């Protein structure tokens, strides 16, 4: 499936100074994208529900996320007396750190020739792409779990427990859903997976895997209809009930960055990354925009689903994860493996 010609630059590493520049650029880009997603979500949710959404700050309410962030950052760093101080401060940092680390993985384009230096338009092209992703996904769970536990509040703790159970349940299906793609592409590098989709984007042959990954992605990012960790009606705010100010802003930021990460991974793995259909080969600088466009489509889907589906009950969440998604994902991986071996 994967010809040797276009996999040549997979696992390519730039000199150290380019890596540092790229790290700054990735962080800055992620930092700019999150407010855009924030305002897009609030405006779109408004439209879905027959109202305007924020429209007071700036033209069409475009500066609303800035106002929100400014408000949160200037607030007092409140801490409950029952909380575990060190972990209470650390937990939001873990959340944001893992989100940014996972964001580094998303390839925004192939290696480009910029001023005579070959630069890959991605944070890092590790040879264990999905493993790296799941490793940071697993660490992100500590951000939620420690945050909920160290708050010393029952609501936070319940939210964190739910979050932990949910993340563990759906991570399995998510990993198995990705296995099918890895079998087909025969590489663990995300740029390798993209270049392997030259013939056909993987969401066609791996449609079941695509659906499972998407559903598990909703659960992994604690988004509706799987937002049981912060079921506001039952748990006030879930794991972040006791957080305020900058710490809450960190959690908020991490949540939306995680949405972007899942959108980016879906784009990379199933929607052909920077590739365009019908054999169109634009110049290299178009690649990031193609990826961003596909990411925005997935993000729109996230918001659309949030506006449509009601929250699942806890037992429904668990039985869906273990009795539906996991067998389906296993079957998908199995069938893909058999097909790959049979056709090889």
């Amino acid at each position, binding site marked *: 499936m994967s010809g040797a010609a276009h996999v040549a630059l997979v696992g390519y590493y730039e000199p150290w100074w380019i890596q540092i520049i790229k790290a700054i650029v990735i962080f800055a880009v992620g930092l700019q994208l999150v407010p855009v997603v924030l305002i897009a979500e609030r405006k779109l949710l408004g*439209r879905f529900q027959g109202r305007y959404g924020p429209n007071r700050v700036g033209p069409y309410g475009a500066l609303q996320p800035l106002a929100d962030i400014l408000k949160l950052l200037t607030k007092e760093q409140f801490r409950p007396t029952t909380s575990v101080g060190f972990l209470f401060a650390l937990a939001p940092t873990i959340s944001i750190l893992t989100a940014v680390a996972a964001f580094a993985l998303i390839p925004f384009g192939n290696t480009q020739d910029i001023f005579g230096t070959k630069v890959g338009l991605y944070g890092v092209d590790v040879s264990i792409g999905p493993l790296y992703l799941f490793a940071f996904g697993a660490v992100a769970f500590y951000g939620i779990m420690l945050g909920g536990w160290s708050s010393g509040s029952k609501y936070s703790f319940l939210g964190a427990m739910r979050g932990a159970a949910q993340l563990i349940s759906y991570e399995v299906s998510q990993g198995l859903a990705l296995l099918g793609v890895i079998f087909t592409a025969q590489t663990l590098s995300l740029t390798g997976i993209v270049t392997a989709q030259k013939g056909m984007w993987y969401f066609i042959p791996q449609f079941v895997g695509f659906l499972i990954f998407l559903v598990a992605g909703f659960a992994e990012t604690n988004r509706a209809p799987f937002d049981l960790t912060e079921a506001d009606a039952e748990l006030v705010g879930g794991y972040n009930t006791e957080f305020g100010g900058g710490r809450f802003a960190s959690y908020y930021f991490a949540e939306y960055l995680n949405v972007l990460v899942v959108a980016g991974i879906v784009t990379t793995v199933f929607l052909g990354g920077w590739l365009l259909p019908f054999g169109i080969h634009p110049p290299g600088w178009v690649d990031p925009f193609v990826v961003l466009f596909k990411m925005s489509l997935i993000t729109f889907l996230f918001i659309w689903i949030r506006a449509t589906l009601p929250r699942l009950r806890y037992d429904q969440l668990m039985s869906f994860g273990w009795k539906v998604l996991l067998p389906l994902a296993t079957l998908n991986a199995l069938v893909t493996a058999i097909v790959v071996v049979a056709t090889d």
Partner: protein
Amino acid sequence: MSATPPNDRAADAPDAPEAPDAPAPPGAPGPALTVSEWSPGEDVIEVQRHPKPGATRSAWRAFRETARGLKTTFGRIGERPSTIQYPEEKVPVYPRFRGRHKLHRFEDIPSSGAQAGLEKCVGCSLCAAACPADCIRVVAAENTPENRVSPGERYAAVYEINLSRCIFCGYCEIACPFDAITMGHDYELSDYDRHDLIFTKEMLLAEPLERTPLRNEGE
């Protein structure tokens, strides 16, 4: 309790229900175990039943219903939001809306003759008597040829309505024999101080600075 004996019998003799002429006890295994279908009357056209079990069917049903929900919400995007942006955009009131009271003068036109520009209120205090919330205070004074305020014998020297007590029932309007007091359309009556909500005669006589939009006929 009643379900256990047939089940025990089925375990003992699995071929028992296959005998067609065996008298089937209520709840016996075999055809009697199927979900009994409640038969509606002939006038009932459609009965909503629980979904039939089955993995494929229920999966398809879940998918279809989700897609239907997504279609519904997507259709809302193009529609105009039903929000009314209140301070800038006001809902027009009906002509008979009971808002803040207004006191009236005779119109300042030549045909009204000697009455032109005089206050309609003659200080009879019928409105105050009719008021169930006891929010109107009238102190009457005699009209003199030098100081003629109203066409009648007396006029209201003090006319105050405490709008923080008023329940906007409109009884004052009905009680008034001269149509001197009517309910207006003004409904933006919040203030920082309760004392500011006691409206004096001058305030009630004055034309409102900003007119409340009025709903047209049939709107």
